[in-house]
């Protein structure tokens, strides 16, 4: 294997791992926002305990 293979593999792997972290962060954040909006649309808020 040439040195180019090791360099390319290193950069591609790093890009994939960082892209995975970013994708996971975005998907997870959106999922929580959706879940929160759904709960609030059903009238569940932190003030609902008093009601």
């Amino acid at each position, binding site marked *: 294997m040439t*040195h*180019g293979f*090791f*360099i390319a*593999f*290193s*950069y591609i*792997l*790093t890009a994939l*791992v*960082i892209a*995975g*972290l*970013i994708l*996971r*962060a975005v998907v*997870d*954040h959106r999922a*929580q*926002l959706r*879940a*929160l909006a759904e*709960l*609030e649309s*059903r009238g*569940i*808020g*932190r003030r*609902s*305990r008093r009601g």
Partner: protein
Amino acid sequence: MIRDLANPTRFMSFSGTLLPWVTGLAVLLLAVGLYMVWFVAPADYQQGETVKIMYIHVPAAWLSLFFYMIMSASALGNLVWRHPLADVSQKAAAPIGAAFTLICLVTGSLWGKPMWGTYWQWDARLTSMLVMLLIYLGILALWRAIEEPNRAARAVSILTLVGAVNVPIVKFSVDWWNTLHQPASVFRLGGPTIHPSMLVPLLVMAVAFTLIGIGLHLSGIRTEILRRRVRTLTILEAERLDAQAA
């Protein structure tokens, strides 16, 4: 300031303003760093172009330790000062630190094969870094194993502080033992031993990686705050349904 940001609502507002700036700066510096690495930095006189792996391996190694130190500070914040966002910060930092440790180990291995003739050697630096990855994975597993967030945070804080013993071992392993891995060449008492033509792109890449890490950490904290709000509201909904049924 840390006390001010203890309020999750205030933190959400502050981090919401900060995050686009951190992201923008990270993208800009990454673009500048990659340009310098591929079009400006010279090949090494011994390693040739393979030295380009250094520009991702070294920042990943620094961030691995950086995020472990963030987790240790958060663990102290949780156990000693009961800071409300300490465990949130700790939980958000763990997968980022683990990912950078993985990058460090794999790129190190890919750099080692053409330079040392082997992908792996059980020397002190490589082994202590592998132990670091195992500690990160143990912490991630512990978060998942305990459902109640406060109990999980206490257990993880203790494990994190025990694992912090490994941080100086990683850093000084190349000084304390005779290792195949080279000694420190940037942060050392006598100053860096790397030529500025390679040092500058390395530092630019390191700052870019750090900003990516900080951006991911801020985003992770924000998501965890939302997750806890969802959990609280779900419990409130269940209590309300119980009260109606009774």
